[in-house]
């Protein structure tokens, strides 16, 4: 699949990607190497894997990493109660010890966890290893082994080899630096915030009813906000939420009052509201508002968080 096709297919699923993104995916698919995606929160790292699975018409298998994740949770586990029951029941049969053992340790009693599942899938699945930086270093080393060999050894069963290589997407939020070994095993893609044009395209793709003016205003304000020194800069997910909120309020354009009403969709740390208030003039000019309307409209963030005035349609 070439880059243009990937772009088009992603576009069909309301996911707008630029050319370098598409090229990276194309290469990852062709070279059959894992793709490590890093970038700020909320730019669609996880979504990439989901859409890729849809595009390839295959299954998405997700391994969410967290601190303390170990091989049993990621790879496989025996179904002990089931085995136990079986052992008890087979006592009455006149089976030899070997036969009973073979029965108990067969695939029927194996609980497949994401990694083993990905390996045993018939058609190459998309394996999403999400937020790998949250897992311990020990798990990273274990992951390396699986990614390199694509085989898993279960002492009671023997070695299971991948029937088809999974397409691997690894995401990281850079909580800690990943090891060089893992980086070298992967192709690397840095996913930054979208440009204004891209963001407008994304808004239109995801929310077809959105007015042209509102979309460009939202994108412009987002661009300005990301330039400020905020504790939690808003991502694309926030843009979409915000656009949805504004549409629900039947706004066809954005002004300071609308921003004040809905600021909770965009800025999620209290200190950031203060920063935004200090840069109200920049935000107003991003919206295309004049200084006069800024003064009359006001930016009442401290008095009004939006709860009192937001009206949601009732059915």
């Amino acid at each position, binding site marked *: 699949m070439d880059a243009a096709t990937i772009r088009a297919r992603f576009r069909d699923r309301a996911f707008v990607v630029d050319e370098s993104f598409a*090229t990276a995916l194309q290469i990852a698919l062709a070279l059959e190497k894992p793709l490590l995606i890093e970038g700020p929160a909320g730019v669609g790292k996880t979504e990439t894997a989901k859409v890729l699975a849809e595009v390839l018409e295959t299954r998405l298998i997700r391994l969410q990493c967290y601190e303390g994740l170990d091989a049993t949770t990621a790879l496989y586990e*025996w179904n002990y109660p089931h085995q136990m029951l079986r052992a008890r029941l087979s006592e009455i049969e006149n089976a030899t010890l070997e036969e009973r053992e073979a029965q108990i340790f067969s695939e029927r009693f194996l609980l497949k966890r994401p990694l083993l599942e990905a390996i045993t899938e018939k058609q190459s699945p998309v394996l999403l290893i999400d937020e790998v930086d949250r897992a311990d270093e020990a798990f990273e080393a274990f992951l390396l082994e699986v990614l390199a060999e694509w085989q898993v050894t279960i002492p009671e069963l023997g070695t299971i080899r991948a029937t088809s290589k999974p397409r691997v997407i690894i995401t990281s939020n*850079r909580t*800690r*630096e990943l090891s060089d070994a893992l980086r070298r095993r992967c*192709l690397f893609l840095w996913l930054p915030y979208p440009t204004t044009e891209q963001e407008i395209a994304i808004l239109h793709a995801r929310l077809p009813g959105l007015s042209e003016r509102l979309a460009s205003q939202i994108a412009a304000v987002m661009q300005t906000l990301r330039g400020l020194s905020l*504790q939690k800069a808003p991502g694309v997910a926030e843009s979409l939420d915000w656009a949805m909120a504004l549409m629900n309020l039947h706004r066809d354009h954005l002004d300071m009052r609308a921003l004040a009403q809905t600021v909770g969709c965009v800025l999620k740390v209290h200190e950031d509201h203060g920063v935004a208030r200090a840069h109200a003039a920049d935000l107003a000019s991003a919206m295309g508002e004049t200084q006069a309307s800024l003064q009359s409209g006001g930016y009442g963030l401290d008095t009004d968080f939006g709860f009192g005035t937001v009206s949601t349609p009732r059915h």
Partner: protein
Amino acid sequence: MYAFGGLPENLVIFCALLRRDYGFRIGAGELLDAARALNIIDLSSQQAVRAALRTVLAGTHDDVMAFDKAFDRFFLSGALAGKQDAAVLERKPEPGAGEEGTVSKRVGTSGAFDAEFDEGATEGTGLMTPLETAAEDASGVIGRASYSPAGVDSTQAPEVPEADDEWVAAARELVRRVHLGPARKWRAARKGRRFDLRRTLRASLQTGGEPLMPRWLARPHRHPRFVVLIDASRSMNQYAPTALRVVSALTRATARVEVFVFSTALRRVTIELQRASLGTSHRLQALSRAWGGGTTIGACLSEFVRGYGDRLLSSTTVVIVVSDGLDVGEAETLRSAVQAISRRSGALVWLNPLLETPGYEPTALGMSTAKPFVTTFTSVNDLAGLVRLSRNLRLHA
């Protein structure tokens, strides 16, 4: 345009340039992947070639940022620049360099590699050796070269002193003494407070299905994470070796250390230090630009909170600031940054080398602003100091 005709040659030289001037870690594997990638994509599109090579050759965010500059310089700049690159990289290996010659044969690539070895050998700066040889060549430089457009003098780069076993032992003690209490998850343990049915049943298979051996679960101890922020201003120059030694020891004692240096800007140097502490004592090339100059502590610390706070600060994090507190920025910025760090971390340790000076009182504006938020205020000038720190370390209540 670049000086050579064929694409493979250019690719090899481009990779060598990335390694030499931009500190990329590219081995034969990456080179091969790059060639395969170029085979797949549409070569007539500059955008595609750029994206393809970036995907394969860059490994970190810093690499990505440097890549476009390198790409423009190599493929798009005037003929002169291209020829200069080529001339540097095409230098034939000298007869004396037998050792490198054999290595490059094993690696199995073209002459550009040899040329690069010679550069490294003759000039003795921190040039990259290919990854394959790094482990064998103990005397070679394992560190990452940095792009230094201003021609930074390598002697400016701080040297990382080797932490000997005593230092590492003291650092381990420090890590051990951070008592964070039990974690919330349950883990298998020999003795514990909760009965583990699953493992008991598993164990009962050995005794014919009779659960004779009970198994237990316990809450494991939480392990601390360390974030060290080192002031790299000129006034701290004297103290730099000690600070780096402490960090180096800590890096060897636990894997959960993140290191930053700051003067007028903040820089994450965890990887550089890890690589440095693996080898023998050598200079941190990548730090040379961060090292020296005045300090805006407040601005740098708030940059840290903004950029890394979410990810690195938690109740298990011990933040160690190494600084003399001589701040040229605004006190209010410093106050809010230190407050944010203090509120979101398990402990805030401030190591101030000036404390060793007889009669010193932390009355300078910067230090007196930060002091109320600091849980442990001390200095570490020698091994005994580090041992003392591990005894005196206090966590937030």
